[in-house]
């Protein structure tokens, strides 16, 4: 009972148990932190709309975005991952969700954004001819990564029913 090995064993097991309890408590504090985002998006225009290989279609947009993310951060938040997602339905697919802009905001970065000209980081590509004349919804999704604990996700619908053009064009 008093050998150094049993002392070391007891110390190790007790400290790991304590650490585990502290982690659980820290993770549990997220329950009391409501997370909200203020966001406003306006699609200025469609920049590129064309047909690409394998019979798919590609879309590029130009947007204006106001975003305030400060309420998402708690003491246990390490970073928040944002993405703008285009959603549309087509004949063959009941739901298509395509990320076209994403951004990581760490807890030390600035949290309020006001972007006048955002372009796609990734192209909005459909499976098959699904975009011509279709309507598009754009939502902002966020995922808060804690320092320890459960990941939390949420979304804010920004644009509903944006009508896409009938014809392809490229407008630099």
């Amino acid at each position, binding site marked *: 009972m008093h050998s150094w090995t049993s002392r070391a064993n007891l110390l190790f097991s007790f400290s790991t148990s304590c650490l585990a309890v502290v982690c659980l408590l820290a993770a549990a504090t997220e329950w009391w932190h409501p997370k909200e985002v203020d966001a406003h998006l306006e699609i200025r225009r469609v920049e590129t709309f064309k047909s690409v290989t394998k019979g798919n279609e590609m879309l590029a947009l130009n947007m204006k975005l106001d975003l305030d993310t400060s309420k998402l951060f708690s003491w246990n938040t390490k970073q928040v991952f944002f993405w703008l997602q285009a959603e549309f339905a087509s004949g063959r697919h009941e739901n*298509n969700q395509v990320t076209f802009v994403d951004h990581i905001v760490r807890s030390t970065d600035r949290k309020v954004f006001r972007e006048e000209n955002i372009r796609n980081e990734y192209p909005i590509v459909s499976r098959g001819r699904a975009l011509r004349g279709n309507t598009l919804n754009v939502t902002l999704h966020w995922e808060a990564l804690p320092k320890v604990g459960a990941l939390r996700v949420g979304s804010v619908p920004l644009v509903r029913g944006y009508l896409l053009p009938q014809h392809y064009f490229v407008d630099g």
Partner: protein
Amino acid sequence: GAVEMEQKRCCGELQGPSAPSRGRQGRSRSALPAPRRHGEPESALRKLQEHQLSTDAPASRQPWCATVRRRRGRGDGRVRRLTGGGSSVTSWIHAGLVATSALAIWKAMMLVTLCESPVVVVLSGSMEPGFYRGDILFLNMGKRKVDNGEIVVFNIDGRDIPIVHRSLRVHTERSTGNQEILTKGDNNYANDRGLYKPGQDWLQKKHLIGRVVGYCPYVGMLTIIMNDYPFLKYMLIGILGFFVVTSKDEM
């Protein structure tokens, strides 16, 4: 209980509250009185008396009570336990219980989360600054459809190590409900088509092991160290086995 009553009867005096026979063990080693053997009562009792005098057990002067007293310390002078060599059998059983309960917890987590591996360790830096090498992730598969932007762990045919990346595009078919998923690591420039099997453009749900629901930093470093230096793994198991075998403490 039963043995103390015997003592009171044969010794004719009450034991003090500090009943030394209780000791640390709390369980009697010799619950039954040892039978006297013909032809050698004197020497054995004398040996027992000497042994008792060397300990600090009071009121042990009446020799014929001594055979039914429980003794403090390790083993009786007279009654030897049949399982010699300390409590090694008990410690082996205890070690086995710990190992099998850990396995049972793992299997229960597998059932609840419907994942073949409910806890994974991040090996690469392709999801920085969120996940660093050595962090552990808790996974849950579930039956609901994959949403875009979920962090998923998936297997690629021909690669033995699963990959943790975020889904970039999800297309859900109307007729079958099948989903086509394209992924990309947060820290990578390009999407994962270069990582998939040649000719494979999309992932299906069958490729996924699970989605990430929880996160704990640094804990997986031990797994990575043991992976990189396998001799540490064997040394750790050897040390644990050594402690199991040589442990003399009652667990």
